C-alpha cells in the first residue's frame, strides 16, 4: 500500500509536466494576446510590453524560462493585474476556494449520505419521496439560477443572510454560497447512497445479521453502511474536484475572493502566467484528491488490494 502511494506521488511529476506544456502552448495558439483591448496600443508601447514580459523571445525559450521559474515556485507577474504577483493572488484565492469547496463537500456528503440512507430505509414511503424531491431540485436547477434565486429569497425578501460579498473571518457570508455549491452534490450522493443501500439491504450477509437477531440500527451501522458507501466513494473524487472548480460561478455571483474567476478572466484576457498558475495548482489538488480517494477505497473494501 505504501509503495503504491509512493509511486503514485512520483507519477505526479511527469503528469504535471505534460499538463503544463500542453497548457502553455495551447494558450499561445489562441488568437489575441494579453494587450488587445478597445483601444489600440501604440506599437512602441506594445514592443515595450512584449519585452518586459519576455514575449518577444522565441516560444521555446519562453517555455524554458517559465519552467525554470516554476520549479522555484515563482509563478511570475500577472500581465493584467499589476498590483499583485500571481503567487500573491493564488495565496489569497486558493485557500479561500479550497475552504469553500471542502466545507460544501463535507456538508453535501453528510447530508447526501443521511438523506440517501433514510430514503432507502423508508423506500416508497413519504420520507423517501420528500427527500428525493428536495434533493433533486439541486440537480434540476442550474447553479447560477439557484444562486440568484436564493439571493432573492433569503437575501432580499426574507433578509436572513447577507446577499453576497465577503468579510474575512465572517462565516455569515458563506451560508448562501455553500448552499448553492452543496445542493447538486448532495443530490448525486443521495441518489448513489439510496441505490447502493437498497442493494446492500438485500444481500445475504445483511440477511444473516438480521436473522442473528441484531437490531435494525446495528445492522445498518455495522454491516450495511461500509459496503453501501463504496459507489459513493468512487464519486467523491470527481465530486470534490467538481466542487472546487464549480465554485467559479458561485464566486462570480457572490463576489467572493476565490481563485475561480482567475481561470475565466485570465483565459479571456490571455494572461498567460495566471492561467498557467491556476491550472498547475488545480492539477496538483485534483491529483492529490484522486490518490486520497483511491486509498480510502482500499480501506473500505477489503477485496481491493493494490500491488
Amino acid at each position, binding site marked *: 500500500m505504501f509503495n503504491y502511494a509512493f509511486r503514485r506521488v512520483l507519477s505526479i511529476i511527469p503528469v504535471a509536466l505534460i499538463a503544463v506544456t500542453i497548457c502553455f502552448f495551447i494558450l499561445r495558439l489562441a488568437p489575441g494576446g494579453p494587450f*488587445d483591448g478597445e483601444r*489600440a496600443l501604440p506599437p512602441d*508601447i506594445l514592443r515595450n510590453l512584449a519585452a518586459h514580459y519576455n514575449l518577444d523571445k522565441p516560444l521555446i525559450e519562453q517555455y524554458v524560462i517559465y519552467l525554470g521559474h516554476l520549479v522555484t515556485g515563482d509563478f511570475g507577474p500577472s500581465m493584467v493585474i*499589476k498590483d*499583485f504577483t500571481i503567487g500573491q493572488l493564488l495565496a489569497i484565492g486558493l485557500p479561500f476556494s479550497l475552504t469553500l469547496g471542502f466545507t460544501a463537500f463535507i456538508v453535501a456528503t453528510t447530508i447526501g449520505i443521511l438523506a440517501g440512507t433514510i430514503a432507502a430505509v423508508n423506500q416508497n414511503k413519504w420520507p423517501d419521496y420528500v427527500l428525493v424531491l428536495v434533493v433533486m431540485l439541486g440537480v434540476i436547477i442550474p447553479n447560477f439560477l439557484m444562486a440568484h434565486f436564493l439571493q432573492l429569497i433569503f437575501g*432580499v425578501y426574507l433578509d436572513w443572510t447577507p446577499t453576497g*460579498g465577503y468579510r474575512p473571518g465572517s462565516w455569515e457570508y458563506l451560508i448562501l454560497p455553500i448552499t448553492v455549491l452543496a445542493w447538486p452534490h448532495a443530490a448525486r450522493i443521495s441518489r448513489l447512497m439510496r441505490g447502493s443501500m437498497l442493494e446492500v439491504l438485500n444481500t445475504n450477509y445483511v440477511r444473516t445479521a438480521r436473522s442473528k437477531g441484531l437490531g435494525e440500527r446495528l445492522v445498518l451501522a455495522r454491516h450495511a453502511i461500509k459496503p453501501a458507501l463504496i459507489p459513493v466513494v468512487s464519486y467523491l473524487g470527481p465530486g470534490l474536484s467538481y466542487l472546487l472548480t464549480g465554485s467559479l460561478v458561485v464566486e462570480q455571483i457572490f*463576489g467572493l*475572493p476565490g481563485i475561480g474567476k482567475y481561470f475565466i478572466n485570465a483565459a479571456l484576457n490571455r494572461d498567460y502566467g495566471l492561467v498557467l498558475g491556476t491550472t498547475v495548482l488545480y492539477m496538483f489538488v485534483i491529483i492529490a484528491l484522486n490518490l486520497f480517494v483511491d486509498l480510502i477505497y482500499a480501506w473500505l473494501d477489503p477485496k481491493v488490494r493494490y500491488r
Partner: protein
Amino acid sequence: MKFTSIMRVAALAGATVLMTAPAFAVTLNLHNGGDPRSLDPQRVSGNWEDRPVSDYIEGLMTLDAAGNAILGQAASYQVSDDQTVYTFTLRDDAMWSDGTPVTAGDFVLGLQRLVDPATASDYAYLQYAIKNAAAINSGEITDLNELGVKAIDDKTVEITLESPTPYFLQALTHYSAYPNPKHVYDQVGDDWTSIGNVVANGPFVPVEWVPGSYIRAEKNAGYYDAANVQIDEVYYYVLEDDAAALNRYRAGEFDMLSTFSPDAYPLLQSDYPGQAHVVPFLGVYYYVMNQEDPVLADVNVRKALSISINREVIGPEILGTGELPAYSWVPPGTANYEGDTYRPAWADTPYADRVAEAAALMAAAGYTPDNPLNLQLRYNTSDAHQRIAVAIAAMWAPIGVNVELFNADVGTHYDALSAGDFQIGRAGWLMDYNDPINMLDLLKGGTAQEGGTINWGNNYGRYDNDEYDALLDESATQIDLVERAATLHSAEAIAMDEFGVIPIYYYVSKWVIAPQIGGFVDNPVDRHLVRYLTKSE
C-alpha cells in the same frame, strides 16, 4: 426567525470586534463592477479603476460634482500669452496622508512615469499635448527630463505644451496626469501602490484590498477639504454579474449600482422610482466599415448601409434604456464645439424613403435581394451587441445585403479590427476628455511605419481623407476656440458626408442611487467623486 436573529447578532458582534472603524462611521457601499488591475493611476484605463484611484489621488485640476474642471492640488495657475506654458502654484496645505507635503516633484514623477515607455501606460497618449511626451513615449527621446514638465521649486509646476491646447486643463483632470508620492516611490519603486505603502493626497486612503471581493478606503483626515467630506469609509465592491448586483442593491447591501442590465429597467422604474439614473454620456456606439475592402470602398455602398438603419428604435425598443440615435460623430454636449450638431439631410427623410434609396444605391452597385452582397458583421460577445446586430442585419436584408454574424471575446475582437481582418465591425468609444478632437482623432489617417506598414491606431475602418487630416492639423494651431470649432465642424462634415463610419447611438450612463445618498449629480463625463456624496441613515 429567532435563531437567525441570534446568529446575526453574534456575527455582528464578532464582526464589530474585528472592524477597526468606529461603530458610527458613515460607510458608503459602492458597486464598482470589475476588479481593478492596479491602484497606480498611470497603469489603469477602466472606469472601474478610475473610481478608487480618483478618490485617493488628486491632480493639479480636479472635478466638481457636475464634472467641470476645477482647481485641485493647485491653488492657482497662469498661462503664457502664446498659450503654451502653464504655471501652477500648489496649495500650501496639499499633503500626503503620511504627513509629507505634496511637492512639484510628485507631479513631475507622475507625468514622467506616464510617458516612460517602460511603464507601458495605455493612456500615455492622453497627455501628448505636453512637449516631447510623444517623442519620449515612442523612444525617440530617451531622457525623461526632456518632458515639458518641470518643478521650478517645491511648490511650482511649469508645464510646456507642444502647441496651444484649449482642452489642456480638462486633460489634467484625467488620472493619467495624477502625481505620484516621490518619497515613497524612491524607496519602494513600483510597489508604492501596495496596501501598506500607498499614501493619499486625496479625500480617502485605500486600507484593504481583498482581490475579487472589495477595496476598502478610509477618510483621509489630512486632506485639505476633509471638513466637507461626509463619508468616513468606502467599500468598492467587485461584482460583474448584473443580476447579483441588483439583488444586493435591493437587499440594501449596495448604496449605488454603477450599471444595470436593460432588462432590469422596467422593474427599477416601477418598484424603485427615481433611483435609476439614465443620462446621456459622452460616448458613441458605432459600426466601422473596412474601407480597404473593395466593395466598402464605394461611398454609395457605405451610404446605403448607413441610411437604411433605423436608429430611432435601438435605444427605446431594442435596448430599453432610451439611448439617443446618433447621426453625428461628435456627441451633442461636447465642450469647445460651438455650432450646430451635424445632422445629415437624410435623417429627416421618412424611413421608408431611405430604404428605397438605399436599395437603389445597392442595385446600382450590382446587389439586390436576389443577388445579395455577403457581409460579415463582427461584434464582441454581449447580449446587447447581439440584439443590435440581429436587428440591423434584418434592416439590411431588404436592400440586398446578406449578413453573417460573428462574435468573439473582446480581446480577439479588437485584435481583428486593428489587423483589418473584418468587413463590418462593432466598436464603441467613450470620450477620454470633453473635447471634440477626442472623437475626430479616431478618423485620422494612419501613420507610416518603418517596414512599409501603416499604423491605423484606433481608426479601424481605415478612413483616409487628406483634406480631413489637414483640417485637424490646422485646428491644432488655432487659439480662438470659436474658430477652432468651425474648423472641426468642417472636418466632421467631410467624414460624415463620406460615411467614413456609421454612428448608431450615444451612450448613456446607468446608475442606481439609493434614496439615502445625496450629492450625486448626473454629468456627461460620468465621473462621480465620493467626496461630494452624503449618506443619511
